[in-house]
């Protein structure tokens, strides 16, 4: 008990530190790894000033059908590669996939052009990466959100359930109607992890809250997202957490319309700090999933000769792979953030096990 109290005070302290750090948007704090709530733009930014380590090296990524401007994980991944290019002068490119048949051909385009590493962004590219890895044993590949068992593929997944748990805490504490919505993309394990973690987080702080779930079946259909959000808000929910990529843009759209007609509704964004894109009048907070970070880190590993084919990297709270952005403090009161911090530490320490999905 004593120990808990100690941790709690520690959290309070750090939280307040983080809050002050937010006010002055200073990217130069080298000790941000210790900053628990806010996972700041780039953990490794300070580590590498521009070098020419990547000169002559070529990195590429293939988006899913959402396209590179999905304001979500494809875009985040591309930001990671752009940063890599800036830091190391490596050549980076992307190809957008118009339809599912393009996944494999787009990957092969890069493989054939002898790119040093080709990323498949998203669960949907899992089969294509598997196939490409089989066909081209010499090529180096990597995939986000899916596990591909091949000696030349590095897989990255995230503990979305952990991060979602934290935004669930925010939602559970801040709902006024006791009704909270969840809009998912396709019903696949990745999204299920968001769903289950979020639900657990809400229930942990507000066991009476009702959660209305809706899987739209797509990551690239804002119209479906908008329709789903409209239904959920109509049912009385005041906060929606979306884990639906480009489809989620429609959720924001709907929220903005309601906001402008005078109703206070919130959206919890996903993957990136979506308050930057959609404004903090409707964005309560976001469940950051540092795809950019993962893409950057593993690409950088390759430059450093540390590419580990066959390895599966799971990035969770403790790795800062998921979390809440600094900007959360705009709309989320300090006491809620403190609670978030409390749970975060409990998860990291293993005191709480967040349910997950395979």
């Amino acid at each position, binding site marked *: 008990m004593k120990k808990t109290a100690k941790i709690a005070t520690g959290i309070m302290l750090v939280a307040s530190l983080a809050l002050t750090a937010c006010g002055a948007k200073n990217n130069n704090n080298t000790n941000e790894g210790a900053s628990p709530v806010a996972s700041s733009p780039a953990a490794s930014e300070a580590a590498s000033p521009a070098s020419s380590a990547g000169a002559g090296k070529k990195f590429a990524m293939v988006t899913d059908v959402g396209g590179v401007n999905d304001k979500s994980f494809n875009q985040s991944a591309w930001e990671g590669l752009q940063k890599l290019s800036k830091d190391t002068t490596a050549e980076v*490119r992307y*190809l*957008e996939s*118009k*339809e*599912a*048949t*393009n996944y*494999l*051909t*787009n990957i*092969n*385009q890069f493989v*054939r052009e002898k790119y040093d590493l080709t990323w498949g962004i998203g*669960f*949907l590219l*899992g*089969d294509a990466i598997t196939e490409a890895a089989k*066909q081209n044993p010499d090529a180096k590949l990597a995939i986000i959100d899916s596990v591909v068992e091949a000696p030349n593929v590095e897989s990255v997944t995230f503990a979305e359930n952990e991060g979602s748990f934290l935004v669930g805490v925010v939602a559970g504490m801040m709902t006024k109607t006791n009704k909270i919505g969840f809009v998912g993309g*396709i*019903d*696949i*394990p990745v999204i299920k992890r968001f769903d289950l973690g979020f639900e657990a987080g809400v229930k942990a702080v507000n066991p009476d809250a009702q959660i209305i779930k809706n899987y*739209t*079946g*797509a990551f*690239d*259909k804002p119209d*479906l997202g908008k329709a789903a959000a409209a239904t959920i808000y109509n049912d009385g929910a005041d906060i929606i957490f979306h884990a639906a990529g480009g489809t989620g843009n429609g959720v924001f759209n709907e929220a903005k319309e309601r906001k402008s007609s005078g109703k206070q509704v919130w959206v919890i964004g996903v993957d990136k700090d979506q308050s930057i894109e959609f404004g903090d009048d409707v964005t309560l907070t976001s469940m950051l999933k540092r795809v950019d970070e993962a893409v950057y880190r593993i690409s950088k590993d390759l430059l450093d000769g540390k590419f580990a084919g066959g390895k599966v990297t799971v990035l969770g709270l403790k790795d800062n792979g998921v979390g809440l952005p600094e900007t959360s403090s705009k709309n989320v009161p300090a006491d809620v953030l403190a609670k978030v911090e409390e749970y975060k530490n409990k998860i990291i320490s293993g005191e709480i096990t967040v349910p997950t*999905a*395979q």
Partner: protein
Amino acid sequence: MNKVIRLFTKDSAVVPLVAIVLGLIVGAIIMLFGGYDPILAYRSLLKKVFGNPYDFGETLTAITPLIFTGLSVAFAFRTGLFNIGAEGQYIVGMTGATIIGVQVNAPWFIHAPLAIIVGALCGGFWGMIAGYLKAARGVNEVITTIMLNWIALHLGNYLVNTFVLEPGKGRSYFVDDSAAVTIGWLSRAMDNARIHWGMFFAILAVIFVYAYLWRTKSGYELRVVGFNPDAAKYAGINVNKGVVKAMFISGALAGLAGVFQLLGVFLNQPISAGHTGHGFDGIAVALLGGNTPLGVLFGAILFGTLSYGAAGMSFGADVPPEIIRIVIGSVIFFVAAPGIIRWVLKQLRLRKNKGEVA
């Protein structure tokens, strides 16, 4: 030899060729406005399509479904029906093949043909619904086929979800090898391009549509119904039966597009939120080809080449895929507006004549 020359100097041959050239020029102008290098872009396109055996093979794979859906639309059109539902028939055909491919165990010489036949019948049945509604209730087939597209999409998802879903993958199980129609040796010879028997069937389908419509008794009946249903009635031909039959054949052709995409390319069927667009592209292909079987073949080659080459343009000249859609769109525009082309040709001829006089 003279015959050949006459064939190519005939309006019917010159007009589409000029339309393509004009479309490419308009595309080039748009690229120039956008700050892209059109010559590099078109060279990249050609390089992407013909540059190596892999991409060439993949281009053939991209063309194949377009031949089927193009034939489907053209066939319906020849019989006086506007089949907007190739998309839905494609999905239903694919679903039928998936279920047979996954659930049935049989030697290859039974399994693959069974999957193909069942898929074609499913597509045909789906088309027949619209045909029946038109014949029995007078419901316009344009409306019913559009509606049936959406029903097909969700029915397909439901069936995959219920009967053949691989848990946690968001798609069906892979079909058995015995059901696949891939051509291993040819794929290997073409650097693993996804070559399959579908393209040979597509050529057969071109011949079939020609022979059926212009050589058989029942094809003759359908054409009479299509061009002049009143005269068909006066000649004692059963118009309603003709409509149902025509929609069945049209639907089966579109269904085969889905069948071969599945058994030859994907080998599994994803749960998808939106249409693939192959059915809608079929309308454009039929238009490009003037609703003749041979024209559809060329139209599909053009359309498929441009679509597949699009990735090359965006890879080689950084042209975004949207611009490529504009190029394709302007080609179709000019083909669909032969009046414009004839006017251009007339102006050219006039100028030539004037030049001769002067």
